């Protein structure tokens, strides 16, 4: 592999937020296409970070730092890209369910998905089911990520599933849940499609849906 791309990969892996932009600029100066830099440098670097997270070498803060490193590099890459190529893997709507305003986990997932080529539509916190469904209709997004921390608000997950069925979207839609009070059992109980314990789980799940689409 091209040494400059390897250097970008290494910068992501080593969370080098201060050095990554210069390395990306060097790749571009050498005539490498932005898509290649993203696929071979940034995505591969994030894969290494994800693996280290799962093996316990990296922690949540490191995952976030990796997302920040990618954020640092992306403006330069995007300025060299056709706008249509910005969303490579599909659109994901993210929301913290109605009645709940905890958003740290959701934001981490958003950061990791964006860094991996998903277009993230973040609706924020305390989002009513109706708004999620309307956004899905308006944007064509069929991947939904719902975050819930409060036990008392988990019923909102079912509302999204039921409302999407009423809107005729449920078959095409994939609802993934995460957050402190969620679990596999809750996922089944609320009629969601998958449960992700960590941001890396969420990335894996949405990537598998994206490949299957």
């Amino acid at each position, binding site marked *: 592999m091209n040494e400059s791309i390897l250097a970008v990969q290494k910068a992501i892996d080593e969370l080098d937020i201060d050095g990554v932009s210069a390395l990306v600029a060097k790749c571009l100066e050498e005539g490498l296409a932005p898509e290649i830099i993203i696929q071979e440098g940034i995505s591969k670097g994030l894969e290494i970070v994800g693996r280290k997270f799962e093996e*316990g070498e990296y922690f*949540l*803060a*490191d995952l976030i730092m990796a997302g920040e490193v990618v954020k640092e590099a992306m403006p330069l890459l995007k300025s060299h890209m056709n706008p249509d190529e910005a969303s490579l893997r599909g659109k994901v709507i993210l929301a913290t369910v109605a009645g709940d*305003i*905890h958003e740290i986990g959701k934001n981490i997932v958003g950061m990791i998905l964006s860094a991996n080529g998903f277009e993230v539509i973040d609706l924020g916190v305390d989002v009513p089911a109706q708004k999620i469904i309307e956004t899905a209709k308006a944007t064509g997004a069929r991947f939904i990520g719902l975050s819930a921390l409060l036990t008392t608000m988990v019923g909102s997950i079912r509302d999204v599933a039921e409302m999407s069925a009423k809107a005729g979207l449920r078959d095409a839609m994939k609802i993934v849940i995460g957050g402190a*009070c969620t679990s596999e059992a809750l996922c089944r109980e609320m009629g969601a499609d998958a449960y992700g314990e*960590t941001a890396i789980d969420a990335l894996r799940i949405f990537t598998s849906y994206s490949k299957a689409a």
Partner: protein
Amino acid sequence: MHPIERVLNTMEGKPVDRVPTFCAMVEDRTFNEVLGKPLISQELLMTNPVARFVVDRWGPLITRPIFQTELNRALMKRIRAQVELGFDSIWAIHDETFTVLNHTTMVRFNGSVFNIQPDGYGNMTYMYRGPGIKSREDFEAWPYWPDADDVAHRTYNFFKKVVSNYGQRTCLFGQGPAYGIQESLLWAVGFEKMPVWIRREKDLVKRYIDLNEEICLKTNMALLEAGVPVIIQTDDFAFKSGPIMNPKLIDELFGPSYRRIIKAVHDRKGKYVLHSCGDNTLLVDAFISWGVDGLHAYETTSNVDIFHEKKIHGDKVTIIGGVGVDYLLTDRSKDEEVVDMVKKLIRELGPGGRFIIAPVHSLSSIPARKLEVMVNAVNRYGAYPLSLETPPKEAAQ
């Protein structure tokens, strides 16, 4: 045995007559169930257009005389309700960290912003909204930093009353207006930016930690002088699946402050308990090296295995927690399920002592009655020597 003796002996690994209980605080809904509802609900007061107008216009000015006074009354009620529920030890907190900006927003003195909102039971509560410090300039200009001596003085006055009213009936775990150093930083700059701050703004992070350490030290001393025997401090170092950041980095950044804080407590013959949500398994050795006497919460919705923790750290630190608030201590569970869990915890964690049974958290959804079920079950099954037998099903496994 007196509850104070029961709790302190347990924390020192000495024999006691029964597994002690600890109440991880109660929210307004729960204390209203114990003490009776107010005539006019807080929610009604705060949603009143006149009140909103006043708060929106003069929020910061009326924070101290009106909101702080009202909060002190509510905090005292929380303490009384915990005592009346019959716990051996309770979480008593004095919180004057906030300034109300308007009817939807308050700020904590160390940099974070919170929503003021209804709790679903007619009361008002608050929830973290986001960081108040987004840049170096914000940090330098933050207008709400308190005078630590002033805060400590008022903390002393509050706890002097608490000790006078309840200090002989229960073992007080006291928390001053000093939230955990790490979680305060996380709230102040935002979780998504904290790793960047730690890397790029080392001097500011150090100053932030030092400022908070000073508040912790001074308020803890005020608590001990007022006669509180146990200091409890909350600092959520972990999430559901593990530590927020590398345990080595946590130790490097926050360990020195906590070592000084805990040593100061021990020098004055106090005990120190750290509350940290999430799965702290990888951090327990660091916490023990800082000098903690007890650890709370062993959150049941996280990956932590409290039974395994008892095996590996049970002789070095007092384990406090074990009763889940996501299902068991809610309206949805059956009383028998609470009793069964209490029996299991006593059977597995009671031998050898150094275990205090407790809810893992406070939550508006906890009914007082379920706490009573829990306390009654401990009173009935928790006496030493323990006589609970392993159920045949578990014994066969």
